[in-house]
């Protein structure tokens, strides 16, 4: 039985397998658009390894966190499309 983690993404409570990155959890739930660019275009991750900064989300109130580098933790609160 794989262990799971429950967190909140944009107000919705979801349960994912342990070792899921925040970027993967967001994409599986809502699709690839994670942030809004300076010209208000929707953007999603391209590099998956912390280079491009296109997967930036707010995690537990800290803005501009690279969601591809961070694994889901119990009780984590994630907000997307902040900038």
């Amino acid at each position: 039985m794989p262990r799971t983690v429950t967190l909140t993404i944009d107000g919705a409570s979801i349960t994912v397998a342990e070792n899921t990155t925040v970027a993967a959890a967001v994409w599986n739930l809502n699709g690839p658009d994670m942030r809004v660019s300076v010209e208000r275009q929707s953007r999603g991750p391209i590099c998956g390894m912390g280079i491009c900064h296109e997967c930036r989300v707010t995690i537990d109130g800290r803005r501009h966190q690279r969601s591809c580098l961070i694994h889901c933790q119990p009780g984590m609160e994630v907000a997307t499309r902040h900038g």
Partner: protein
Amino acid sequence: MDELSLGCVVVGAGPAGLAAAVNAAESGLRVAVIDENDRTGGQIWRSNRGALHPNAVRWLERADRAGVRFIAEATVLGRNRSDEIEVVSGDRPFRIKTESVILATGGRELFLPFPGWTLPGVTGVGGLQALVKGGLDIRGKDIVIAGSGPLVPAVAAELKRRGATVNAVAEQADFVRILSFGLKLARHPRKMFQALQLGFTLRGVPKHFSCWPSRAEGTDRVERVVLSGKRGTVTIPCDFLASSFGLIADTRLARLLGCSVDDRGIVVDEDQMTDVPGVYAAGECTGIGGVDVALVEGSVAGLAVAGRVDDARRLFRRRSVEQRFAAALEGSFALRRDVLQAVEDSTVVCRCEDVRWADLKDRESWRSAKLLTRVGMGPCQGRVCGAALCRLKGWTDPTPRPPLQPVPLAALTSSGQLQPR
């Protein structure tokens, strides 16, 4: 501010970094490995939903036994003096006293802009692989992989095994060149076997050579891709488009520390030492060659740092065999000009600052482009658009300045890196 005193600091916890750390620590040095990620392994040994590659497990066990310390989620700010580097982990800055640094900063994908490449759902090739290893679900999805290099078929095969429908694989290089690369693999039986396995997994998948992505289309996300080639264009529907044009050495930290670099990567001598005393480099950051050469180079660097030069020499022959593979790799996937001509005036080139090609194409230098458009001045600091513009415009990457990654202001205020020079 916290301080730590060590014999050697390794930057990067991929194969080269781990091999370097293990060899230095087993020789009696106190060693720490610093990495931006929260886990060890780097990209090629990135854990697959928590499961590590068996080779990574072996090196990590050795690292553990040798007492190697792992400093996770950390970024090097710079080198204050020849015996001190400065690191930020989270909001916490600290200094590490160390005589020697081994750079194992790896490589990154070369991304090239084409209309629609900013649509969500368009990723890198290794980028998509990394996201999938992090739990992204691709079962039943339509995927197109278009770009260049051995990563293209490797990732296509992996995604297919995991239940994706691979609608097309496109390689911009000519079939003849790929064939001759394949023949050179005969001298590396294990790699030849891997290539044959890939071919078998990808049987039935449409493969296009001399073919590149010229446009991605969709309303809010990518829905289809237009591939161009000698025989005209073809439009293929997809939920995901993975596109990148090979790997490039990540030399930013090396250049920040003053090390010389060339077209391949950081310049090192036979002991993997750079031209800055006390600074060594190993793995992809010294030239793209894959995991096997990275392990040997890392081992040489670790032994050399510990003064075991004779033991390091015993590895030179193996290293040169592996480096021959790297050399074969290099010429085979040379970038065709057509790929660079896909960009249009309205194409966003700098994704951080939304700077379009129309505002960049007539600029004379990086400097004037930066001053007038803010290109390359966003959070990624030109990691994506910089490499693309070097190819589109023939510019050379400007010398990076600290900090290489955005860090909280609180961490910078106590940093020696902010002092006037």
